[in-house]
């Protein structure tokens, strides 16, 4: 008699425990709002809209996933809105990009959002490849050793993604003058073609479409890629240009030893934020585990969907997308940048470019 009761209780408990899990993560007849703090037609907007229909397909209940653009303040407005208004019910998610992460890392006082509190769903990496004007006589990274000629780089601003190339060039000992005011890498590339600047980088998709043609015409010489992340979080060569050294390698070629110290630590953290896990989807703080898991599972399924893989090849640079735990581990590296390294970077920006990192 006691054994039967015992079993019955166990079964009842199992039933009770099973039901809430599936109850919480069903989005049938719901609309999910994906906040993108950028304008229609921009890179992040395109990214989200490429993913959205697949989330509709793989989230339980097949909800509608609607992209809501909230541009402003360089993506700070959208981020703040998500932080203050999004409820932990899985119906609002946020898409961040490098320009959202940077002000956060640089402790911009206008930033209210806090990535350390949110739950990441997935992340999309991006790569960058640097190239130089052939008239300067540089054929490979080796020639940069002791290269003293002044260079000009078209920059958007000292607190933008340009921190990556500028710091990298600085670490390599190059004398690069940052010309501020360009509205993005597109105009930057045009400036390079015009001869207004002589060193530049492009993100991989732009590089493939535009810079390769320049290289073939003899108008550009590729130098290095920033790099890509391997599964253990190390920076390795970018698959888009496997013959080019990644930044840490390039450093080693020039100086004969591996890069380290506050400059490199800062660079690595910001490289991750700006490229390694440039774009990411987030759920608000206190979102229940089952909802987070539902999203992460959906993301994992999307990544393995062959139709989506084609999209990744065509429009997202072909980089392996990171879902769930992988994304979390990678982004944690961004969040773990030490306060000293962060201070070092802020100081570097302020002294070198005479810019107050407000």
């Amino acid at each position, binding site marked *: 008699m006691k054994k039967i009761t015992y079993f019955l209780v166990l079964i009842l408990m199992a039933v009770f425990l099973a039901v809430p899990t599936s109850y919480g993560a069903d989005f049938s007849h719901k609309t999910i709002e994906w906040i993108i703090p950028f304008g229609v037609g921009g890179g992040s907007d395109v990214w989200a809209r490429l993913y959205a229909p697949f989330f509709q397909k793989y989230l339980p209940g097949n909800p509608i996933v*609607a992209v809501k653009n909230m541009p402003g303040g360089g993506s700070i407005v959208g981020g703040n809105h998500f932080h203050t208004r999004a409820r932990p019910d899985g119906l609002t998610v946020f898409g961040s990009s490098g320009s959202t992460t940077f002000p956060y890392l640089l402790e911009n006082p206008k930033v209210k959002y806090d990535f350390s509190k949110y739950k990441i769903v997935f992340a999309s990496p991006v790569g960058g490849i640097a190239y130089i004007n052939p008239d300067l006589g540089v054929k490979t990274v080796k020639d940069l050793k002791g290269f003293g000629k002044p260079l000009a780089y078209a920059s958007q601003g000292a607190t933008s993604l340009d921190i990556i190339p500028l710091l990298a060039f600085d670490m390599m000992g190059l004398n690069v003058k940052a010309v*501020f005011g360009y509205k993005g890498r597109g105009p930057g590339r045009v400036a390079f073609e015009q001869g207004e600047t002589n060193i530049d980088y492009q993100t991989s998709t732009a590089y493939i479409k535009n810079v390769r043609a320049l290289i073939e015409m003899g108008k550009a010489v590729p130098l290095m890629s920033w790099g890509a992340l391997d599964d253990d979080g190390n920076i390795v060569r970018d698959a888009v240009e496997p013959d080019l050294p990644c930044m840490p390698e390039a450093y080693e070629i020039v100086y004969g030893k591996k890069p380290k110290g506050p400059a490199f630590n800062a660079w690595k953290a910001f490289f991750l934020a700006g490229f390694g896990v440039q774009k990411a989807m987030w759920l608000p703080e206190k979102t229940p585990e089952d909802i987070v898991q539902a999203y992460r599972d959906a993301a994992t399924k999307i990544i393995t969907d062959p139709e989506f893989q084609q999209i990744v090849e065509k429009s997202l640079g072909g980089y392996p997308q990171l879902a769930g735990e992988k994304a979390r581990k990678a982004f944690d590296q961004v969040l773990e940048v030490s306060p000293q390294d962060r201070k070092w970077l802020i100081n570097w920006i302020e002294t070198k470019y*005479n*810019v*107050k990192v407000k």
Partner: protein
Amino acid sequence: MMRNLGIVFSVLVTLAFGYGIYEAFSYAYLAKIFPLYISLVLCVLAVINLIQEFRASRKGLGADSKTTADLESEWGDIPMSDVLQRFSVFVVVMIVLYALVWLIGYPLGITLFIIILYRYVSRTKWHWAIVAGLAGLGFLALVSKLLYMDWPEGIFKLPWPLG
């Protein structure tokens, strides 16, 4: 009257550029150059303009402030004081509209606005006013559904498409 107000505006413009100069000083070097120099030049020009206007008003010249570039604004037989009064009424109406929208949301707010204006300004019968209001509401509903356009929500949240 109009001339005097015109001068008041010119004074405000001069002060505005003065403020522009003052504010610009506090900006980082790269951000200050442009607004600083522009404000400086413009402040000087504004002062010159002010002097010209004073001279003209003292000489009692006509309020000749029209330019070939601007849209004609001949008031004919409506006295300027009336014009200003009606303008102020319009501004107040807009503020009331905004307050209404803030309370009950845009669609209902603007619909009521249309209805009230039709009834009391155009003096139509109530049913036409309501038709007009509904036309406005219908338009909003259409663009919201088809093109995902948004509107401000009020404090009191109403069901779609009223709020």
